[in-house]
């Protein structure tokens, strides 16, 4: 086994942040030319590990070897010099530059008088684009590209700097199923040409599809490296979570009554740059139903949630809860009728510096449940918080603990617990499992299903198709600020729905019709036969 050439070798690497050990004795061996996946739940130490490799942070102890040579990587510059390239989850591109300019940024070809040689820049871009089969248009501006293409540019940028080892951090998080497929094809091609690919992800399905070896991280420790052909998702999930994962299917009861609980009519919203982000969309959610708005991020989801919460100005349209327009109410007034689980729990959903208690009772500070005159009744509010901690199985050392010290899953449970505790009949839930471990995700899904079974109307906004299919009664696809399709989950595969999410297919039905689950079928619209099936 001695003669195997390792592109990356990490031995006993530790990283401490103050008293917190982010990584502990990381051991990683990546064979040259393979696709090596690193999986783990959020907070398992994946990001720390990659940041060490890319020179963003220096390890507290341990050694790193690249191509058999022990190295120190003090900066990303040093990492690039060693042939390490990184494709970040959040792209680091200049929107106003062309593709070629972005790819050559930092190492532009220069002609006389230190002028940038645009011609050679374009040639260079074409050349590497052809060599790796990554088709791009070098002269197009980056701001006009789709997410999949942006990622392609990022990969090319790393390759053009001579990367032999490519790290991709959660590359599929923003891609549609079809784009994922393309990406994997590219990765396989690169591996065939001798490049080493490190794939950081928590999606086990993808890992099984594309990788040669898999290293599992849990709580900052390497749990072991497995050969992909030798293992399965179940076993990986078990290693990730420390126990065999049990996937209990969600139990959905038939709906009891046909009553519209939540109706959005002709909602139009602009973003901060005065661009219309929602073009008059209409949605109708029945009591006891989960309606999902699916789609690729950036097609108006954020604006939809913000408009409903009262953060963005509603230009036109109505938001009716049981027939009452809440669009005219302020944030507190809306909360009386409707609960919100916002997509950004760090900024919006929680006060990370506040205690578990303060976060759990938020929104109730003016309610007589926990108030006596101008004063808080801490006995009552603590009891309320304790109840929620118990009921939602929130793992915390106490009510006084700062929320920032809890895991992502437990943080999200606090948001869910608080929002569901108001007993509102309408719930708006955005990306409830983003950055949340599998265990907590399952728990949250169970809670949402239970609320649905109890007659709540739930509007779910999610970009995670697995989640969409697990929870939804009906799915509507949001593309470029419009509803372009309406389906039931069993009528359309994830692949097919991807075509709607990217705008390839669309229904010609008017938004008003698409919103109506019982609207008359429109036989003319190609991909829409599924749209009007009866709800189970």
């Amino acid at each position, binding site marked *: 086994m001695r003669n195997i050439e390792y592109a990356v070798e990490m031995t006993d690497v530790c990283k401490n942040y*103050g008293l917190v050990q982010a990584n502990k004795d990381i051991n990683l061996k990546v064979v040259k030319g393979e696709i090596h996946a690193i999986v783990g739940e959020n907070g398992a130490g994946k990001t720390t590990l990659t940041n060490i490799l890319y020179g963003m942070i220096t390890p507290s102890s341990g050694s790193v070897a690249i191509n058999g040579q022990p190295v120190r990587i003090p900066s990303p510059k040093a990492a690039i010099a060693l042939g390490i390239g990184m494709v970040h989850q959040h792209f680091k591109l200049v929107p106003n530059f062309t593709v070629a300019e972005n790819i050559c940024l930092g190492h532009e070809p220069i002609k006389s008088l230190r002028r940038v040689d645009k011609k050679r820049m374009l040639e260079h871009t074409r050349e590497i684009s052809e060599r790796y089969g990554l088709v791009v248009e070098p002269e197009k501006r980056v701001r006009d590209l789709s997410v999949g293409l942006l990622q392609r540019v990022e990969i090319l940028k790393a390759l053009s700097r001579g990367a032999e080892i490519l790290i991709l951090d959660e590359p599929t998080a923003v891609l549609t199923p079809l784009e994922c497929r393309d990406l994997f094809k590219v990765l396989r091609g690169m591996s065939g040409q001798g490049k080493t690919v490190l794939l950081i992800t928590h999606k086990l399905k993808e890992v099984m599809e594309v990788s040669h070896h898999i290293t599992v991280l849990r709580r900052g420790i390497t749990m072991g490296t497995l050969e992909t052909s030798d293992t399965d998702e179940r076993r990986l999930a078990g290693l990730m979570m420390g126990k065999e994962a049990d996937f209990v299917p969600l139990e959905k009861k038939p709906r009891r009554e046909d009553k519209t609980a939540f109706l959005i009519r002709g909602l139009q919203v602009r973003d901060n740059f005065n661009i219309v982000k929602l073009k008059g969309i209409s949605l109708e959610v029945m009591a006891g139903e989960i309606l999902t708005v699916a789609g690729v991020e950036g097609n108006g989801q954020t604006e939809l949630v913000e408009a409903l919460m009262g953060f963005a100005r509603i230009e036109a349209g109505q938001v009716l809860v049981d027939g009452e327009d809440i669009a005219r109410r302020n944030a*507190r007034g809306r909360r009386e009728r409707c609960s919100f689980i916002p997509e950004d729990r760090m900024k919006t959903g*929680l006060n990370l*510096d506040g205690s578990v208690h303060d976060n759990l009772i938020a929104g109730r500070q003016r309610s007589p449940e926990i108030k006596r005159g101008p004063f808080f009744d801490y006995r009552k509010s603590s009891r309320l918080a304790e109840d929620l901690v118990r009921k939602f199985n929130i793992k915390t050392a106490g009510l006084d603990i700062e929320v920032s010290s809890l895991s992502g899953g437990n943080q999200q449970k606090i948001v869910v617990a608080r929002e569901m505790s108001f007993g509102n009949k309408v719930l708006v839930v955005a990306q409830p499992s983003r950055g949340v471990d599998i265990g907590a995700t399952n728990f949250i899904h169970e809670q949402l299903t239970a609320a649905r079974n109890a007659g709540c109307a739930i509007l779910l906004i999610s970009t995670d198709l697995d989640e969409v299919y697990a929870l939804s009664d009906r799915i509507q696809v949001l593309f470029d600020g419009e509803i372009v399709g309406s389906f039931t989950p069993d009528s359309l595969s994830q692949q097919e729905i991807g075509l709607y999410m990217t705008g390839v297919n669309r229904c010609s039905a008017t938004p008003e019709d698409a919103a109506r689950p019982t609207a008359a079928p429109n036989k003319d619209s190609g991909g829409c036969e599924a749209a009007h099936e009866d709800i189970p």
Partner: protein
Amino acid sequence: MKISRKLLLPLISLCALIASLIIGAIIILINGDNPLVAYGALIEGSFNGMPNLAGTLSSATPLLFTGLGVAVAFKSGMANIGAEGQLYMGAIAAALVGVYLPWPGISLIPAALLAAFAAGGLYGLIPAALKIKTDTNEVVTTLMLNYVATLLTSYLVNYPFKAPGAPLGMTEDIQKAARLPLLYSGSRFNIGFILAIAACVLVALMFRYTTMGYEMRMLGQNSVYSKYIGIDVSARMLQGMFLGGGLAGVGGATLVLGIQYRFVQNISPGYGFDGLTIALMAGFSAIGVIPMAILFGALRSGGLSMELATSVPSELSKVVQAIIILFMAAQVSLALYFTEFMTRLRHRREKKQATGGA
């Protein structure tokens, strides 16, 4: 050793203090004096004996109010750099009431204090309103309004309200009944100090036990979240700035009613800015303001004794203050460095034990 975050902040503050005293000692050495003698005189001059202690506490009184005013505003999410200006507005209001209000004696002090609170508070509302209406950065507006307040009050006491025959801009003396009762005769140590301590305690209780305090706290920690959970963000911002400005204004009143007995132009030697440092060192805790303000009062009143005992100029105590500010500004990275150092130490010990045991 595990240190909770609650304990860490005072610990870091203490480290900053010690480090700045060491650097101060080096400067004293360069100046050709014995730092032990100088610091001895500093401590003696500020704490030894009732007259000295009274001097320290009377210097601390306006600092308590400005420190608390800044802390309250910061805690409700407003970066208030304008305590100096709010202090000036409060001071002039207190002086005008104290000089001209023809009310019976007993009502003069409460009336002057209330006027000072209202003047400082209203002055604090300007940057808050600008932030809400036009999204102007309050750091800039509060800072700029300091100059407006200093110059405006200077104008007032040089022209319309100038005491006849006074050599520089000042009002006439306030009425005897408007003077704050002394707590120690022969000094200017007055009941303003007790009011200040009471204010700190009341504010701490408000933040801890009332709905308004809870909402202000949440706002200070995360404004987006506060809006989301249904807090009236604008109202709490205005409240925080009114209360903070008002407290700084009362600090100005204690200068007029308790120390100078009139308003003199440039009445404050930077109490408002010291208040900022004090609030920062206290981690914006209302109770934490108390020891920090007394410490700064001691540096102010002991600096003079140090000058008398050695050739060290009292400006040096200001240098020490400046160094403290520097260290406090670095406190977050210091905290990280410190914990990292402790874990490394622990690791080394563990490793030693492990190898020793094997």
